[in-house]
């Protein structure tokens, strides 16, 4: 009797799961192209905002890089007169309450030229969102990538620098992103 009931409940939940799965895949099929387009547009705008004289067409070179760090979502290469001049790393790191910070790190001649935030989730409003503050992001500009190499970061106590008071965990997410991007960039040199 108990076995029969368990089978009946199992079948009921399976049928429900199938119906829900079909419904969600239909909605996903409709919305995914729109979401992807929006994300692409957002990244394109950030790349053009960095330097609109560079050629950003077919700049996504993620698939051509082997053994890419798992937290690096995309890698873009900006060209000038057909030659690569800048490499941009889109990195996802963790901020406060396991919220994700997606940032872009622009590296030219082994120098960090710019750090920008693509999106933040579940950051404490008014505190964690301070990482999007331009003046804070500007502290990385012009610094050499070797300063943020993984080996250097492990040897130096980087806890005392580059952290916004009141948004410690969130700004640590940005530092992690810079370290990941720099380490990846130097390893590819």
């Amino acid at each position: 009797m108990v076995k029969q009931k368990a089978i009946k409940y199992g079948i009921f939940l399976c049928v429900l799961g199938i119906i829900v799965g079909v419904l969600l895949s239909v909605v996903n099929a409709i919305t995914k192209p729109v979401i992807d387009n929006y994300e692409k547009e957002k990244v394109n705008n950030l790349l053009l905002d960095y330097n609109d004289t560079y050629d950003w067409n077919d700049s996504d070179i993620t698939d051509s890089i082997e053994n890419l760090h798992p937290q690096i979502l995309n890698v873009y290469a900006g060209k000038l007169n057909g030659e690569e001049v800048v490499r941009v790393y889109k990195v996802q790191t963790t901020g406060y309450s396991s919220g994700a910070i997606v940032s872009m790190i622009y590296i030219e001649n082994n120098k960090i030229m710019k750090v920008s935030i693509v999106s933040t989730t579940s950051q404490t409003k008014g505190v964690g969102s301070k990482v999007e503050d331009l003046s804070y992001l500007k502290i990385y500009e012009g610094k050499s990538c070797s300063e943020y190499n993984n080996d250097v970061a492990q040897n130096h106590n980087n806890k005392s620098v580059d952290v916004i008071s009141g948004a410690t965990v969130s700004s640590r997410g940005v530092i992690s992103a810079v370290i990941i991007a720099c380490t990846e960039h130097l390893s590819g040199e």
Partner: protein
Amino acid sequence: MANKTSLKTEFTKGLFKENPILVTMLGLCPTLAITVSLENALGMGIAFAFVLLMSNIVVSLIRKIVPSEIRIPVYIVIIATFVSIVEMLMAAYLPSLSDSLGVFIPLIVVNCIVLGRAEAFASKNGVLPSIMDALGMAVGYTMILALIASIREILGSGTLTIWGSLVLDINKLFGSNETLPIFSSFFISPAGAYLVLGIIFGVVATIRISKERKQKMLEKKAEEEKKAKLLQEKNNQQLNLNKGAGE
């Protein structure tokens, strides 16, 4: 068959009498977190209304075929499905709102109001009353979210913005281009949310208590009048009896 009056009652009870925030005090976590701006509050209200309405309809439709032992996981699956749908739709068509509401959209899955209405109402009633119940609760919830958000946004920055366009700027009314010193970002912070919510709870409790007192006084008055009337009738009867005996 539900009549018009009972359907109306199902709708109106969610507005004040059984308001999910003010009376049952459910779903306070997103209430405190997302009410930093009126725009967020309205967006959350719409997402919440969609999930509550759709889950109430589906739970009500399948209430007779769901085995009672597994009803809670079934309700959770139904609610999670609609939350996922609303999350995908928002990310696709309202991306800025989706970004600002962040994790609080997926968290509707564990919102006690939605599961509470599915378990306490939709699983025991027909589709029409369930729709009215969901609409009433959603309007009541959104109304209070919008009220808290408006107070916090105005006190925090002196402005009110809906769908990206500024509808009110008190700073400009006073001829200032910057935020006036009377407005403090404290109200945008979580502590400000607690304070505003606490004051609203206090005001609502005061109104309710004074209403109850008034009701009690009216009842007491009516009882006293009834007693006086009975005494008067008794006296009249006695007087009539005495008169009859005298004659």
